[in-house]
């Protein structure tokens, strides 16, 4: 609606004021008029005008003075100076003092119409941007991390302290514990909140793609590189880059990343020019990076660079007191999103949720609540809605160990994993947590064909 953007027309000549106001009103705008600079400033104190058309020559306070006074009370107002005589000096002065535009009357109706529409379009975008930023900032604020667990409270206190520093942060924790949520809370509570927060999932891409994703590439640097592309580090300039699953990056990228962390500069793939960035790095992993360092799978120098501030997020089973709080929160949020009239969760159902081990942590809890809400026909989630969870738990917990030697157990485990990985030795070795060479030794020792 245009009417939300009030416009002020300022001119000592009533005819000019009223005719211009009438023309703008036909376009749907709310328009006020002022016959002097003083009156205009008084009106601007009471109303947040989006645009003020101000005549340059007025007795008493002239157009430039009026503009400056309006800007003192309404810094965001766009001022359009109107004059009957175009001189370069006055135009330059008007623009220097902060006029958005300078028009010579009479001007073509189309010119004014396009000018107003362009300014208001920009204001609308700016206003939407402010609203979105506020929404994002609220969404990821510390107070929206739900907990009454003392360890989580300590973590939240720490994140508040470090929010406005540039130090690198390493967040460790099992999948689904909320590592990205904590990273966003750090970003949106600090000085960089109005700058980008850029996420990169390091495990999702191959080494070449990840390198290009992080650092960008120059035209023709590889097949398919049709033009220059900025990497995530450049896109995050001034803000924060969140490197998720950092434990999965290749040795080459570990070296490249180390250089960026040390020097805050890098080359795009295929590029000869250094790119300098100011980016805060927050990395996350569900691996034990110290152990990865010990096994020489992760560079120790990179580990120490990343691990300036370490945050270890507890698994959900280590903060069971939060399960009822989180469950109630998810019921309210998801029921509202799905348009289901579900008021809460019964005490018996909560007992099931508290007892469950939650290998997928908070994310799994959210998914389980969503499934229950979708399938439930009651206005309160009860134990029947989570009965399947007990079955899943017992299936996961019960392991009928065959009565065989440890070596035989190992042999059967290797065969089972190889079958699951369709004979892919590399993947099977990764799944078993051993090197490929170790797996080959075992295949030979147990005479397993592959």
């Amino acid at each position: 609606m245009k009417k939300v953007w009030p416009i002020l027309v300022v001119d000592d000549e009533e005819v000019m004021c009223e005719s211009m106001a009438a023309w703008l009103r036909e376009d749907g705008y709310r328009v006020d008029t002022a016959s002097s600079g003083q009156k205009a400033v008084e009106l601007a104190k009471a109303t947040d005008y989006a645009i003020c058309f101000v005549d340059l020559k007025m007795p008493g306070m002239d157009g430039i003075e009026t503009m400056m006074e309006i800007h003192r009370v309404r810094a965001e107002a766009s001022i359009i100076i109107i004059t009957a005589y175009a001189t370069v000096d006055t135009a330059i002065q008007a623009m220097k003092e902060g006029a958005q535009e300078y028009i010579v009357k009479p001007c073509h109706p189309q010119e004014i119409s396009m000018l107003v529409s362009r300014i208001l379009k920009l204001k609308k975008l700016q206003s939407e941007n402010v609203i979105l930023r506020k929404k994002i900032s609220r969404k990821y604020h510390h107070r929206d991390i739900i907990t009454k667990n003392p360890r989580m409270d300590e973590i939240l206190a720490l994140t508040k302290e470090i929010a406005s520093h540039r130090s690198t942060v390493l967040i460790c924790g099992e999948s689904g514990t909320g590592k990205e949520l904590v990273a966003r809370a750090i970003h949106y509570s600090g000085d960089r909140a109005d700058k980008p927060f850029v996420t990169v999932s390091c495990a999702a891409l191959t080494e070449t793609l990840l390198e290009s994703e992080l650092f960008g590439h120059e035209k023709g640097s590889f097949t398919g590189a049709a033009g220059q592309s900025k990497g995530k580090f450049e896109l995050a300039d001034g803000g924060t880059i969140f490197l998720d699953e950092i434990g999965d990056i290749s040795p080459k990228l570990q070296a490249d990343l180390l250089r960026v962390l040390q020097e805050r500069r890098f080359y795009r793939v295929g590029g000869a020019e250094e790119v300098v960035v100011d980016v805060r790095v927050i990395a996350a992993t569900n691996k034990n990076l110290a152990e990865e360092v010990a096994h020489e799978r992760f560079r120790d120098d990179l580990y120490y660079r990343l691990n300036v501030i370490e945050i270890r997020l507890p698994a959900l089973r280590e903060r069971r007191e939060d399960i009822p709080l989180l469950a109630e929160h998810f019921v309210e949020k998801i029921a509202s999103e799905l348009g289901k009239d579900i008021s809460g969760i019964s005490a018996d159902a909560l007992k099931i949720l508290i007892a469950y081990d939650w290998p997928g942590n908070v994310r799994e809890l959210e998914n389980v609540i969503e499934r229950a809400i979708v399938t439930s026909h009651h206005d309160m989630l009860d134990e029947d809605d989570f009965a399947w969870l007990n079955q899943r738990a017992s299936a996961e917990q019960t392991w009928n160990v065959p009565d065989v030697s440890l070596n035989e157990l190992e042999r059967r485990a290797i065969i089972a994993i190889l079958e699951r990985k369709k004979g892919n030795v590399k993947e099977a070795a990764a799944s078993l947590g051993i090197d490929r060479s170790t797996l080959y030794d075992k295949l030979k020792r147990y005479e397993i064909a592959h």
Partner: protein
Amino acid sequence: MKSLYVLPVGNVPGQILEWIDGTAAEWFPMPTQRMEMIPIPEGSYDAKRGQYQSVEIMKAVAQKAPGDAARVLGITEVDLAIPTLTFLFGQAQLEGTVAVVSVARLRQEFYGLPADEALLRERVVKEVLHELGHTFGLTHCHDPKCVMSLATHVGLVDSKEERYCTNCGMRIARRAAAMDGERT
């Protein structure tokens, strides 16, 4: 019932007044009455620009409004302008009683082209509907085909249709119906 009065400001061909009568009868429920021509108001002419100040013409039309006027539409052959803008096809009081339409820039001759009566009729009808629409509280419409869309040059007048879009039409009908019971 109150009437829609059509007031020629200066000489206006009878043919144009007939087009306006027909248009008004088609779109608005109140009777249309033609008034005696008034001269172009003295002091409305801006010699420097060779144009007439629309505000002065509006004032003159408003002064002639009869007591039973639902609307008074001034129609003139002179070229209208306001101090800030180079020209106007017409002007109206938003949700008011008075509107003015200038025929000057609706004529092909204004642009150095041969006269075209059919085109002139279309343009006059569109501008009359447009300015009277403003008096019924309608602001510019985003539908470029709607007669209430903003036209800042004659090409845009031509690209509109001689009708209100559904939304604008409904609003006019509601306002007109509300006036229907008003008696003099």
